[in-house]
């Protein structure tokens, strides 16, 4: 592996100190003079037409400054998905509609002097609903006669894809590479199961927060907790029907996103209220609203069928996917596509068939969530792999190694499909998955534990181990673009302006490291200014595991351009040809004469002395292919067969993210993703009643792990070198959330001999499955 000076070092996060000191860095940490407070009225019904809204009393309430509803805002169909234009999500939402499609859908909004007044005012709004029948089960949504959720004539996609809203059919794609039926014929064993995955909320501890105000020039400033500032600007401009130039979006520090903030969820309403009142307006979701009126991971029903030969060859894979989009379709097609595009290239298999549908139902809409469809598909595939290995009597470690893609190989899926549709051909140029499997197994003690758990202890508590491997491609090729701008200051320091959105992940730090590495300067000399649409150049935003890889390349290119300019000035100063000069420790040194000029001298000369100009550069990077990050996960569980309680005792993740630009931050990403994945697998769960209401919209009732719940987690970074990435880096944000579902399901099987095909593995579900088995 190549050695670097700054890259590969765990420098502290550039913003960690101010955060640890509690400085006012988040969207809600400012107080503006005359600021109004906004509240939204939510639908109590899963499906209804609004016959009338009477806001008379509300408007008459002293302290109320604006009331919005379908009657007084422009009807602009758009998507709330924060994706590049033209968005691959259906235009099926408007700011306020005369129809509600899920409990918690928007009905009206208010801006008032105080939150108290706003809340009082909400109660005064009179809404007349005409109730419509609702559909919640995705398997019934496409039936003839099912209630049509999007019967409005103006819903559509901007891109040419299948869309049949009259049958609640939000997206459909199928494909076949090779010949699935032939593959099945070649198989010695065929395995087939139905799987189900459940809803999940992001639970970023900071709720969605937006403050809108007007600057001295009368332009609208949107200070918002977003992963996608540039998409927010574009989509809000669209909804408000004003030109983009009238809007500035500032992304301050963000209190976690995980995909939940890749959505224009509140910004349009907050901005409209500011427009109407000409006052600053603040809109912050309550925790309850996060659960009822934000976005969730798409639940899916999946049917998997695979064929395997006795010698371990995987002859055919079929995955049928039915995704529950909920009431609107943001990310519905792209998440669905990833169950193939970003999940199946992992497997060495020539015959793959994939059929996928996304359907509307009257439940909370799905959206982007870390893992983005790969998490869902990794579950059936990880369990099927385990079952196939068992069927042919091979250790899963060997079976996984044998059947996963290697360096220098390609998958027909790459070309056939991407997240948005057509794929790109590519060869995997970096992959340390085999080493990940070996080292993970060794450190976990896979063989010893498999041996040991063949003999289970007496008593109700049983033990087991399970593994799974995973992949996640980063970026959406040929669509995602990132850029950076930098300029040099008098003392040889730099301002680095990046469009990329750090949402707590450490992106600002990682990008500063890449910049510092390229110019051989310390990280302290890089002053990062992130994501302000007035000031920083465009970046698609923080999603699809793209920041380190793509924004990183943009930063690297920017630094290289700057390097050229520095060398040119230095050459002139030293009177030596540029070719003889090199950059070292904030200075330029001649390899020939040994002469040296400091950066501070060079920049002063450029700014003040001769042929004055600003040393500065801008560069963009377009993603050409999705770099593949891999991981192998190992879980050890304890199952109480009398109570059904499953406890994860230890968990090992061996991860190939290319070069880890900042190992500590990379580990933090791995640990956070794993714990999120484990708590999703075991305890997180939405409950709906038969009217479609969320019954548990609080942290008290929707349980995410706290510190006493965590297992021992070991992270092993197994480097590889991705030639297309900055200093060999790939991505690390998402891939590790794909392991816990299959690894834990497999471990439970190892412990008690029962497989779980439905998630989550709550005590109750496990106990039921054990009882069913006992009854057989």
């Amino acid at each position, binding site marked *: 592996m190549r050695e670097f000076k700054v890259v590969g070092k*765990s420098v*502290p*996060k550039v*913003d*960690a*100190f101010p*955060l*640890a*000191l*509690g*400085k*006012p*860095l*988040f969207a*809600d*940490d400012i*107080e503006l003079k005359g600021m109004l407070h906004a509240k939204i009225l939510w639908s109590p019904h899963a499906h209804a037409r609004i016959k009338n809204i009477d806001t008379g009393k509300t408007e008459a309430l002293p302290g109320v400054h604006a009331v919005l509803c379908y009657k007084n805002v422009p009807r602009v169909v758009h998507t709330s998905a924060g994706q590049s234009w033209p968005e691959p999500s259906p235009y099926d939402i408007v700011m306020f509609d005369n129809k509600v499609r899920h409990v918690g859908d928007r009905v009206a909004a208010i801006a008032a002097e105080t939150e108290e007044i706003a809340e009082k005012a909400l109660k005064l709004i009179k809404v007349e609903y005409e109730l419509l029948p609702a559909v919640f089960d995705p398997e019934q949504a496409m039936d003839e006669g099912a209630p049509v959720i999007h019967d409005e004539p103006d819903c559509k996609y901007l891109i040419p894809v299948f869309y049949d809203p009259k049958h609640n059919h939000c997206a459909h794609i199928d494909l076949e590479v090779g010949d699935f039926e032939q593959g099945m014929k070649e198989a010695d064993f065929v395995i087939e199961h139905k799987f189900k995955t459940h809803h999940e909320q*992001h*639970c*970023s*501890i*900071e*709720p969605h927060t937006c403050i809108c105000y007007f600057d001295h020039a009368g332009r609208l400033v949107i200070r918002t907790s977003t992963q996608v500032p540039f998409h927010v600007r574009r989509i809000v401009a669209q909804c408000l029907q004003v030109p983009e130039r009238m809007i500035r979006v500032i992304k301050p*520090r*963000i*209190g*976690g996103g*995980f995909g939940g903030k890749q959505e224009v969820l509140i910004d349009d309403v907050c901005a409209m209220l500011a427009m109407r009142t000409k006052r600053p307006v603040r809109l*912050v979701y*309550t*925790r309850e609203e996060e659960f009822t009126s934000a976005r969730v991971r798409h639940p899916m029903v999946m049917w998997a069928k695979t064929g395997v030969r006795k010698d371990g060859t995987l002859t055919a894979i079929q995955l049928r996917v039915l995704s529950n989009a909920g009431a609107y379709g943001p990310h519905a097609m792209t998440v669905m596509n990833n169950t193939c595009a970003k999940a199946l290239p992992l497997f060495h298999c020539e015959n793959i068939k994939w059929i996928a549908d996304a359907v509307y139902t009257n439940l909370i809409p799905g959206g982007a969530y870390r893992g983005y469809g790969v998490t869902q598909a990794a579950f059936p595939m990880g369990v099927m792999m385990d079952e196939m290995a068992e069927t042919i009597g091979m250790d899963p470690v060997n079976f996984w190694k044998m059947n996963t893609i290697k360096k220098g190989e390609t998958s027909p899926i790459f070309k056939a499909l991407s997240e948005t549709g057509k794929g790109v051909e590519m060869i995997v140029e970096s992959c340390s998955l085999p080493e990940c499997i070996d080292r993970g197994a060794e450190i976990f003690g896979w063989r010893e534990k498999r041996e040991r758990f063949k003999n289970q202890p007496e008593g109700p508590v049983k033990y087991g181990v399970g593994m799974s491997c995973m992949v996640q491609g980063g970026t959406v090729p040929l669509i995602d673009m990132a850029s950076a701008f930098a300029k040099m200051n008098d003392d040889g320091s730099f301002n680095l302006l990046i469009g990329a959105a750090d*949402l*707590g*992940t*450490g992106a600002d730090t990682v990008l500063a490291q890449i910049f510092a590495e390229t110019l051989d300067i310390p990280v302290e000399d890089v002053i990062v200014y992130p994501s302000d649409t007035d000031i920083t150049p465009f970046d698609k935003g923080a999603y699809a595991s793209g920041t380190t890889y793509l924004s990183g390349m943009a930063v690297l290119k920017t630094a290289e351009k700057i390097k050229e300019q520095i060398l040119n000035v230095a050459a002139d100063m030293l009177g030596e040809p540029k070719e003889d000069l090199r950059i070292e420790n904030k200075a330029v040194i001649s390899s020939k004469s040994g002469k040296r000029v400091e950066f501070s001298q060079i920049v002063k000369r450029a700014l003040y002395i001769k042929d004055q100009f600003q040393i500065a550069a801008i560069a963009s990077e377009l993603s050409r292919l999705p770099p593949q990050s891999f991981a192998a996960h190992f879980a050890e569980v304890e199952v109480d067969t009398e109570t059904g309680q499953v406890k994860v005792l230890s968990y090992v993740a061996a991860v190939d993210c290319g070069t880890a630009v900042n190992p*500590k*931050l990379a*580990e*933090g990403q791995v*640990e*956070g*993703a*794993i*714990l*999120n994945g484990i708590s999703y697998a075991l305890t997180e769960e939405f409950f709906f009643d038969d009217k479609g209401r969320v019954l548990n919209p*609080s*942290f*008290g009732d929707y349980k*995410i*792990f*706290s*510190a*006493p719940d*965590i297992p021992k*987690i070991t992270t092993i970074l197994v480097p590889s070198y991705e030639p297309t990435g900055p200093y060999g880096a790939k991505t690390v944000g998402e891939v590790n959330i794909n392991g816990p579902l299959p690894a834990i399901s497999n471990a439970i099987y190892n412990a008690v001999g029962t497989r779980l095909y439905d998630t989550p593995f709550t005590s109750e579900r496990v106990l039921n499955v054990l009882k069913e088995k006992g009854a057989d």
Partner: protein
Amino acid sequence: MKKEIEFTINGKSRKLTVKPNELLLNVIREDLGLTGTKYGCGTGECGACTVLIDEEPVLSCLTLAITVDKKKVTTIEGIGTDENPHPLQQAFVETGAVQCGFCTPGMILSAKTLLDKNPNPTEDEIKRAIEGNLCRCTGYIKIIEAIKLASVRMGGRRK
């Protein structure tokens, strides 16, 4: 019916007139301008609003401001400065325990009370001390590491 209360905030005595239905969280953020204390749920379930009252961690979202009359309130802004950060703040930065940083103030305050009372906590004691502070970013691993590191630096003996 407003009432004047007098209390200590981050070492300074302070008089304030509050309404009896005002929550301490809002008073701290809005009236005192100390925004390090966060809203994450408002129902006692996330710990983002943790402050110390008489050195004990409590939830400012479930505390009426009027009840802190004559008490000592400490927020994240009161335990360290740029020049002189608290060893926990230093350790959180160094170990990578701060990701988004939204849970960090509450987390650090819970940990501070732990270390003040028990300079050499076991891993289990650390986990229990922060059980009321949810973090969605870190998986808690590096937070626990940071608290251990601070405990060593603050003179707790650790094997």
